[in-house]
């Protein structure tokens, strides 16, 4: 029996792992792409003639999580900054994406979004994580997919943390007894109750 008859047709959705595919791809060594040095336009920047500020170098060996391009140094515009002539401010260092996004915005004024708005957002980013999880299970060597996962899991973690601050925890891990008088996990609504609390 020839093999193609045994194969259900999946409509070409995704590429199944082929024989010979190796999980041991070379490790991603992409360093930070160097920013293009800004060009000097004498018409706009009369102080042109000074040496261009050296863009901060990206050292992947020390900071392997650096995957984002270095922030462009802010240009010096004499019209707005008459003190041009001083050395350019050092661009903010590249912080690993997950750490930066993990900082929960401790908003002292109160929530910007309603409970349903935040829950809707959590449902959306969590669904992205859920779906890419299943895809990665059958495509464990797909690095693009892993980047997609990283992006959405960071958003999800931050959103879960923020939600817990204003509306009570959705997971046991985000239950923060220091933030509230009572055990909000049990006291806040359960998902099958429906309606807009």
């Amino acid at each position, binding site marked *: 029996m020839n*093999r193609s008859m*045994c*194969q*259900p047709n*999946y*409509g070409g*959705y*995704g590429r*199944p*792992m*082929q*024989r*010979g*595919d*190796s*999980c*041991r791809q070379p490790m991603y060594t992409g360093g930070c792409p160097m920013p293009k040095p800004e060009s000097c336009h004498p018409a706009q920047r009369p102080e042109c003639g000074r040496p261009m500020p050296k863009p901060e170098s990206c050292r992947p060996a020390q900071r392997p999580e650096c995957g984002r391009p270095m922030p462009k140094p802010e240009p010096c515009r004499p019209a707005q900054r008459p003190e041009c002539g001083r050395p350019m401010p050092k661009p903010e260092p590249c912080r690993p994406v997950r750490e930066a996004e993990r900082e929960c915005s401790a908003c002292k004024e109160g929530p910007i979004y309603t409970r349903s708005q935040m*829950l*809707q957002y*959590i*449902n959306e980013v*969590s*669904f992205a994580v*859920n*779906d890419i*999880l*299943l*895809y990665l*299970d*059958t*495509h*464990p*060597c797909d690095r693009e997919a892993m980047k997609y996962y990283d992006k959405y899991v960071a958003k999800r973690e931050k959103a879960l943390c923020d939600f817990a601050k204003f509306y009570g*925890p*959705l*997971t*046991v891990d985000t239950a923060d007894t220091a933030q509230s008088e009572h055990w909000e*996990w049990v006291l*806040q609504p*359960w*998902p*099958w109750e*429906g*309606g*807009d609390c």
Partner: protein
Amino acid sequence: MWNYEKRLQYPVNITTPNAKLAQFIMSQYGGPDGEINASLRYLSQRFTMPNRVAMGVLNDIGTEELAHLEMVSTIIHQLTRGLSMEEIEKAGLGPYYIDHTVAVWPQSAAGIPVNACEFQSKGDPVTDLFEDLAAEQKARSTYDNILRVVNNIPEIADPIRFLRAREIVHFQRFGEALNVVQDQLNSKNFYAFNPSFDKPAFCSCENECGCS
């Protein structure tokens, strides 16, 4: 093991109870092709898969089916809370009410209690994965049947449509898992041996059992 998140995978907010629809949708909870049977099927089959890709797919889809059974039981609960005795009787839900009031209990629309005879865990990965492909199609058909009845009620049809779309995606994933398993079998004869029994593949800490 499982953690719990206090949210449904897709929101369910039904404002008007309906006994007849509750009885129909019950089949996706405790019926032959419902989410309870789906999750038990996949979570049972995962142990005898020959590689980690197949194990992972079954584990993770089985876990998502648990989230789906929670959605379906929420739909049933919201369709039955606040029902009057009259509505219950008129819809033919009288016998159910006698034994369960308006509680959620796993049975099919026809009243057959949830039953493991409706699924297999055969211990042969090719067999099991074909069973899973069929199971997803059976679930999709059941959702199609439900949608014909609830198409005009968005608060019920929306979560049902979501669940139906997920079944189709699961079908694709099981197909890919089947490919991975077959790629590791004798290409001249897939049925030469059962990799889960005749030549058991033990995944060790050294090899990943999913990439060759």
